[in-house]
């Protein structure tokens, strides 16, 4: 195989002349890791919460270093304003055969809105509520919560009772280490309450999270920097917020032009106060500009239009929420 590509490699070396590689940021030494705000402060006190034994010293990542820890998974954390993280593994043995493991992931974000956003991105309506931090929820084998500007995920390797209790115990031990604080962004309050699914809110800080929920286009055609998605029984509501009405209208026009040229959309039609179209899966999309917001509803033809009316009714008198950043 090597010989086969010798000539190609020679060529590539030639092309590489003058191109200098940028080294990845060097891993910090343990001493360096102790500086400034130490994310390890959030780890449970002691090394064996509820009998689960910490394995090693854990892994720490700050800023761009998160890519070294979770590669492509880091993008979404940066979209929500990632600061630093610590990962720790725990084990509990009951004889040689019964060994259980739990992973703990603690992410400190720039703001409570970022921690809340990551929580909404990572969580679903499944599972059961638990009284740990804000939004504590045990979903199958893992538990997520947020508190202040910290997002926490505790992951069991199975969903049986012993592991689930360990997951909850470790989560509770972390929760006590985090300074209380943080409120949901005001934008979330604009979603119609009726019919909103439990944990059916996803707070957005950019296009990546939006694309993961519903892909209008791979590009950020609406210039989304802040938004919220509400999931209802038979439709979804999208609300994008801008600095002012001028900005909103600018992005509405740009986005609309992109959608008109999107071959995956059909039945494009103008309504009295907005537009409607159908996606490749047959869902109807209603789109309107409303003051400093862009409103979008995805559902069947009938309920999308009805939901849009409800949304506008709610947005109308509430068009100036306090800034949430």
């Amino acid at each position, binding site marked *: *195989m*090597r010989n*086969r*590509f010798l000539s*190609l*490699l020679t*060529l*590539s*070396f030639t*092309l*590489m002349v003058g191109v200098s*590689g*940028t*080294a*990845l940021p*060097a*891993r910090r030494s343990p001493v360096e890791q102790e500086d400034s705000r130490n994310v390890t402060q959030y780890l449970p006190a002691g090394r064996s919460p509820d009998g689960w034994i910490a394995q090693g010293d854990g892994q720490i990542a700050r800023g761009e270093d998160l*890519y*070294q820890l*979770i*590669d*492509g*998974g880091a*993008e*979404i954390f940066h979209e929500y304003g990632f600061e630093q993280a610590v990962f720790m*593994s725990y084990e509990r043995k009951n004889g040689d055969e019964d060994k259980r*493991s739990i*992973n703990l992931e603690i992410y400190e974000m720039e703001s409570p809105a970022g921690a809340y956003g990551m929580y909404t*991105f*990572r969580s*679903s309506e*499944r599972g059961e509520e638990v009284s740990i931090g804000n939004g504590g929820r045990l*979903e*199958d*084998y*893992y538990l997520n919560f947020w508190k202040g500007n910290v997002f926490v*995920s505790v*992951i069991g*390797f*199975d969903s049986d009772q012993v592991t689930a209790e360990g997951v909850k115990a470790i989560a509770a031990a972390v929760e006590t280490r985090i300074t209380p604080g943080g409120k949901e962004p005001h934008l979330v309050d604009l979603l119609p309450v009726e019919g909103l699914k439990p944990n059916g809110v996803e707070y957005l800080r950019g*296009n*990546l999270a939006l*694309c*993961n929920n519903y*892909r209008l286009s*791979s*590009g*950020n055609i609406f210039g989304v920097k802040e938004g919220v998605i509400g999931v209802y029984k038979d439709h979804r509501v999208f609300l994008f917020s801008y600095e002012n009405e001028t900005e909103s209208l600018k992005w509405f026009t740009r986005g609309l032009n992109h959608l008109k040229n999107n071959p995956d959309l059909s039945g494009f039609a103008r309504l009295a106060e907005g537009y409607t179209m159908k996606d*490749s899966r047959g869902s109807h999309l209603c789109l309107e500009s409303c003051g400093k917001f862009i409103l979008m509803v995805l559902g069947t033809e009938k309920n999308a239009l009805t939901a849009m009316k409800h949304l506008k009714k709610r947005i109308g008198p509430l068009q100036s929420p306090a800034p949430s950043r």
Partner: protein
Amino acid sequence: MAEKITRRTFIKRSAAFGASTIVGAGVLSNCARNTKPPVDIAVIQGGDYFENTMRAIESLGGMERFVSKGSRVAILANPQRNNPGAYTKPEIVRAVISMCNQAGAGAISCLSWLPEENWENTGIKTVVEEEGAGLVIVDRKDETLFEPVPIPEGISLKEARIMKSFFDYDIFIDVPVTKDHIGNRFTGTMKNLMGLNSPLSNRSFHRDGWETDIDAITHLDQCIADLNTVISPDLCVVDATEFITTNGPFGPGELLKPEKVIAGTDRVAIDAYCCTLWGLRGDEIIHINKAYEHGIGEMDLTKLLVYEAEA
């Protein structure tokens, strides 16, 4: 044992492949590659993942079709994180190594730039050692350990940086776990090849240059397709036994357990098939479309011979 063969039409083998620019077409070029496998995609379902893997590869005609005596085999598994459904199951890697040994491979190694800790935590390291294979960990921070490889057909990615160790092997077996991935929604055989490319280069997939954020996910997907024009696995064995369908690639997320192992040689076809396991369509995934446009494989499952059976 229940069996199902979906026969439509066979894939037209792409004559557009520039074989001389494809890395990975080793000794196989002279033997099995020139003969068509009995099926395009083999899918075996069951609770014994080792058995599923053996059966899937046997359905393609056996490992001997891909590994000749004395050949050196590189295996690319995915030990990204030991969260459930986020890594290749050790028993699948075990079966692949075991079958390579039985076929008379001269050397077998798992290659990676992920730290050894990942291989330990996922249990794959133990399997590699028990089966007598090697584990080659490349220092991800040392760019001198990666070979620049031009991508003549690249649209977004003009040059890959492939770990040099890879070129010491004749045969390349891609053993990913299929799962969700943030943004582009899917990872499988083709995205797994980023595990051979230097992390520094991979960063440019996720961001168009280091300085500016990229909004277009298309860039990442195009880069994946471009990379696949110069690296071609001789065999793909996909873990679809248990995987995350949300919060990928790292998890934790919603787990799906189809208990399937999928084997084949057409990456585009396999990835298009894997999409259907959790309600996606191949044509909804940008890099599958881009790879198809590159002529790497077939994404229309109706044109493929898919063999499905329970172990």
